[in-house]
């Protein structure tokens, strides 16, 4: 499976790339929603893993565009919340945006890997699960 990771923090992109490549995935990186869309057009990825709050509503817009332009792509959102959204409303927002799964930062990479395994082994779309509670 090819993965597209979108996050505005370069250390987050780097560390996720190292971990996901170790797990055997091909990883494409993007610093924002617009670049992620371009990357998808250039070379199709199977799963988009994106921070939901990069800039004002950049992540949300990207998710909406992905849903309309690339409906087969699975979407996993991740976030530590933002200035406007608390953890609880973040979960609601993620659902509204049409994400297939949601992770709250910081998360154990194992959770992400589990979700990816479910995507690859299932033919039918995975229903939206409850997002993981924040690691304590």
């Amino acid at each position, binding site marked *: 499976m090819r993965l597209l990771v979108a996050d505005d*923090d370069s250390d*987050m992109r780097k560390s996720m790339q*190292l*971990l996901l490549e170790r797990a055997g995935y091909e990883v494409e990186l993007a610093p924002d929603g617009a670049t992620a869309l371009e990357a998808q057009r250039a070379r199709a990825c199977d799963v988009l893993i994106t921070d939901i709050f990069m800039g004002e509503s950049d992540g949300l817009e990207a998710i909406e565009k992905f849903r309309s332009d690339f409906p087969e792509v699975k979407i996993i959102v991740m976030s530590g919340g933002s200035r406007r959204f*608390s953890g609880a409303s973040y979960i609601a927002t993620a659902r509204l945006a049409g994400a297939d799964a949601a992770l709250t930062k910081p998360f154990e990479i194992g959770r992400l890997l589990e979700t990816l395994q479910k995507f690859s082994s299932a033919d039918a779309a995975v229903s939206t699960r409850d997002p993981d509670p924040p690691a304590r």
Partner: protein
Amino acid sequence: MRESLLLAAIVETSDDAIISKDLNGIITSWNRAAERLFGYTAPEVIGRPVTILMPPERVDEEPGILRRVRRGERIEHYETVRRRKDGTLFDVSLSVSPLVDHDGKVIGASKIARDITERKRIEQELRDANRHKDEFLAILSHEMRNPLAPMQHAVTLLQMADDPEIRRQACAILGRQVAHMSRLVDDLLDISRISRGDVDMRKQEVDLATIIQAAIETCRPVMEAAGHQLDISLPGSPINVLADRLRLAQVISNLLNNAAKYTPPGGRIGVKVSPASGVAAISVQDNGIGISAAELPRIFGMFTQLDGARRRSPGGLGVGLALARQLTALHGGTIEANSAGPDQGSEFIVRIPVSSVGPGTGAST
């Protein structure tokens, strides 16, 4: 007789405006406090309808009030708006009681009016402060969690990977993110300490130039990373100020960091010191995203961030300018912000009293 003299005296000397009217809404009495509150003397209003005290859009409150009074009802702390003789409007709280004669028949109403402008202002301030606190907690949560995510991943990499190159990268990530979180925590502690007045200032005579140079050195990596050009203009001879070197340098480096943060890559930042009759003005300018007229008045407030720029900026708590203002005040100085508007750059000017101009006594380290 004695009792009614006593009551009359109480009404006259009360701090509250006490007004009475008949059932047609005509003013029948008017105490001294009412004169002060509304600006009309008693002869000017007695015999006139109470509606002259109301702004046009409130006049239809009167029939409802009179109806309730006729039923013998009291109206407690009814908040509304009234109008003074000079036409100005103000927020008021009214309590209205029916006046009854010996047979228990309602013959009019007595009104106590209180100016609540000040109370409403304080309430609004409290609501704003509460909202700011909530926003700050949301920012804090977000800014603190974001570095934790790559740190968590870096730790996992160190646990799992033997490859030295991967381990090197993981350690580099940890180093950067720890440094970032340290700055956030420092800012948080600073703001908390300064709010409590708990700052340990060690002031000494020092040449302003050394402080500016120290601030520039601190910010040099950020400015170079963004490809900004820095123009420095310092006077030829030393300018001595009585300052805590670290804290004053912190003010200047906060301004330089903001300039670097809020200017697109390849911008120009200028630092200029100009002495003028007992005061040294330190100006930090940039040709960056500027400050809108709406944002300018709040720019030194706590927890402010320019939203649109967040993506280009490394984040932070938004307390840098609030800190700069407080630290400047602790040095007996002032700080101001100017901008021609969005995308037209900004200029911040710090003014500090000068101890002396000429050969300095402070060591330059």
